[in-house]
């Protein structure tokens, strides 16, 4: 793809390069076997970048060190967002916590914090994620499974009982804009009640319209443009009111898990950031008002070097866009900061303990790629949300990488590898080309409404699965060196069947104790404002403070914005 090679090249002199290329040809012709020469051209990275038997300076001769690679904390930030990287601050060990009722999660959060986690990452059950109360008929079977049930501000208070909101960093995994306008508001309101100033709150909410409309399927789904509007409302309001909060995590992760390659993952997330920046500027904000608070979320999959190259390339692509196109001045705007989760989709149920090895390798790639925070998936991924034992192994794996291997002692240790620099450069070009393709479709919101992204995901998945079926993509113990006998485990999963009963009782009490007049009034105001240009956040926050439930607010959005009936098949 990198046909138009750039001018420059201070890494090697012309004379040196000529010698290197000549030596390479001699070596290729004389030192290799016929079979080696014949298979040259048959190796590709996961996303399709050609891989040579050996890489040399000739593959990166067009790169200029100062312009294209440089130092950490300096443009183009390829080598890392901060000059001192992990010597200054180790990556945040951020493990997920959420199952059952908020009271159960509270214990799990305390357990993780006691064992060295430095940030928490809170998960919700599907009714909460999709905006239904625990008592809604649609919620049947899913209350408290895969995450905690949160119906009202009372639940958020219980989730964080006896935890100082002013000192921790909390990632609220809300996924959808329509719930990000409600659930983080519960957190902010709880802090307010406890007398903690909003300026002390640190954290992230996910808030990504791609999650709402493409990544997850649902019985009822908002239109992409409505979801996108809410996404921008959340960012605008939080930037103005909660200065240390990241109001969006452009979520490449779940998109990748749903089905894209590494190029698509980064390109689509950045395209969302572009659409968002354009909209917020249209609303009168300046790029430096919000860009410093934008963060990204990557999936670290199996192709070790490509994934490291992806992390490095993503920083460079972002820097170019934010500086050249938007003219950002604040240095923080230029930095692509990202959280990483290892790839759940790569973790089979067969011989699950092997997943500890897979996840450790993916986690290592994340650290070599310069992530800001990390979640390492647990070995029981294909069975349930992690058990306590499995979650602890994930934390320990992070600590092993951080404290025992020495990889954090120097910044971007793989820089200068001919292969890594070649891959990084290729990734950057391919990501930029993919972003351009989306722009030619009219931008990401248009592209999504046309059904393009669903087709893209579907095609990728079919091809991926065929590679597994044919054995072209080997998975140890599954389609490669599979054992004769059944090697699935029976893992004892956490179950909280009583969650539903508890939430139901709480809901009954809530509805009895709250001021019905106020509830009605705030829902009515919010409903009316849906049809105005005003930012909906303050109205949703008032509703939350007055004990309106998540489901009541979401139902209102579904009614006022209408449903997108996208046919997948």
């Amino acid at each position, binding site marked *: 793809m990198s046909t138009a090679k750039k001018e420059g090249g201070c890494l090697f002199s012309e004379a040196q390069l000529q010698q290197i290329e000549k030596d390479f040809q001699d070596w290729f012709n004389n030192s290799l076997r016929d079979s080696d020469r014949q298979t040259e051209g048959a190796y590709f990275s996961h996303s399709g970048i050609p891989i040579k038997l050996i890489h040399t300076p000739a593959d990166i001769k067009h790169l200029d060190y100062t312009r294209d690679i440089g130092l950490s904390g300096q443009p183009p930030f390829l080598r890392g967002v901060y000059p001192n990287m992990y010597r200054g601050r180790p990556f945040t060990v951020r493990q997920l916590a959420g199952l059952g009722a908020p009271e159960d999660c509270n214990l799990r959060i305390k357990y993780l914090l006691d064992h060295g986690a430095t940030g928490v990452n809170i998960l919700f059950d599907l009714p909460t994620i999709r905006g239904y109360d625990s008592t809604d008929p649609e919620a049947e*079977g899913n209350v408290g499974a895969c995450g905690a049930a949160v119906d009202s501000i009372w639940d958020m208070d219980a989730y964080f009982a006896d935890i100082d909101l002013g000192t921790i960093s909390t990632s609220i995994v809300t996924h959808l804009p329509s719930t990000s306008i409600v659930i983080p508001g519960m957190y902010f309101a709880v802090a307010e009640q406890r007398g903690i100033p909003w300026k002390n709150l640190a954290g992230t909410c996910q808030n990504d319209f791609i999650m709402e409309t493409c990544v997850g399927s649902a019985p009822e789904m908002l239109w992409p443009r409505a979801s996108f509007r809410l996404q921008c409302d959340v960012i605008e309001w939080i930037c103005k009111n909660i200065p240390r909060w990241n109001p969006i995590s452009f979520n490449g992760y779940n998109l990748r898990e749903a089905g894209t390659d590494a190029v698509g993952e980064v390109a689509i997330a950045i395209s969302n950031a572009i659409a968002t920046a354009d909209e917020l500027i249209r609303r009168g904000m300046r790029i430096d008002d919000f860009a410093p608070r934008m963060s990204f979320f990557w999936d670290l999959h199996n192709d070790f070097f490509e994934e490291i190259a992806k992390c490095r390339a993503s920083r460079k692509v972002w820097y170019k866009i934010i500086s050249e196109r938007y003219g950002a001045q604040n240095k923080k705007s230029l930095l692509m900061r990202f959280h990483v989760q290892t790839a759940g989709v790569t973790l089979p149920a067969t011989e699950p303990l092997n997943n500890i090895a897979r996840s450790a390798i993916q986690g290592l790639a994340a650290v070599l790629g310069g992530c800001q925070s990390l979640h390492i998936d647990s070995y029981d991924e294909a069975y349930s949300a992690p058990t306590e034992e499995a979650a602890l192994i994930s934390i320990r794996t992070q600590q092993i990488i951080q404290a025992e291997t020495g990889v954090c002692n120097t910044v971007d240790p793989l820089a200068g590898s001919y292969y890594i620099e070649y891959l990084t450069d290729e990734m950057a070009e391919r990501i930029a080309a993919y972003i351009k393709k989306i722009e030619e479709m009219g931008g990401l919101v248009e592209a999504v409404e046309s059904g393009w992204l669903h087709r893209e995901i579907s095609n990728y998945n079919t091809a991926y699965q065929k590679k597994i079926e044919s054995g072209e993509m080997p998975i140890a113990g599954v389609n490669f060196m599979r054992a004769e006998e059944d090697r699935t485990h029976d893992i004892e999963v956490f179950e909280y069947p009583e969650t539903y009963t508890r939430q139901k009782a709480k809901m009954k009490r809530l509805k009895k104790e709250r001021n019905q007049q106020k509830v009605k009034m705030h829902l009515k105001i919010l409903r009316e404002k849906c049809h105005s240009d005003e930012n909906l956040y303050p109205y949703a926050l008032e509703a939350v403070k007055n004990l309106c439930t998540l489901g009541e607010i979401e139902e209102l959005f579904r009614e006022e914005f209408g449903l997108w009936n996208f046919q997948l*098949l």
Partner: protein
Amino acid sequence: MNRRIRVLMAKLGLDIHWRGVYLVSEFLKEAGMEVVYLGNSFPEQIVEAAIEEDADVVGLSTLSGNHMTLGPKVVKLLKEKGMGHVKVFMGGVMPPKDAVKLEAEHGIHKVYLPDTSMETIIEGIKSSMRDS
């Protein structure tokens, strides 16, 4: 009778993971079956659609913990509506002991856990038709 096998595929309840159900649907189509994908739905809607589509097989996908509550309900409702001949398959993420229970006690014809090859699923459906 030599008609194509008619399969109704659905995601159970609020489960958001559509990758698996989409893939299985595509591979079943490629294997010559007629596939209708209902999207996210609840037992009552699934059974209604199974009647309307005259399905031979219902395939339920779930990765989010509602398998024990919603899965058996589909089987029960099918029987009540006189559709007891319809074979119900499930696929997704769940503890293996639940899969055993669903097959042994709740009338699910077969549960496919992660790592199952598409070939196994296709064969499983075809042979269930031969048995009946």
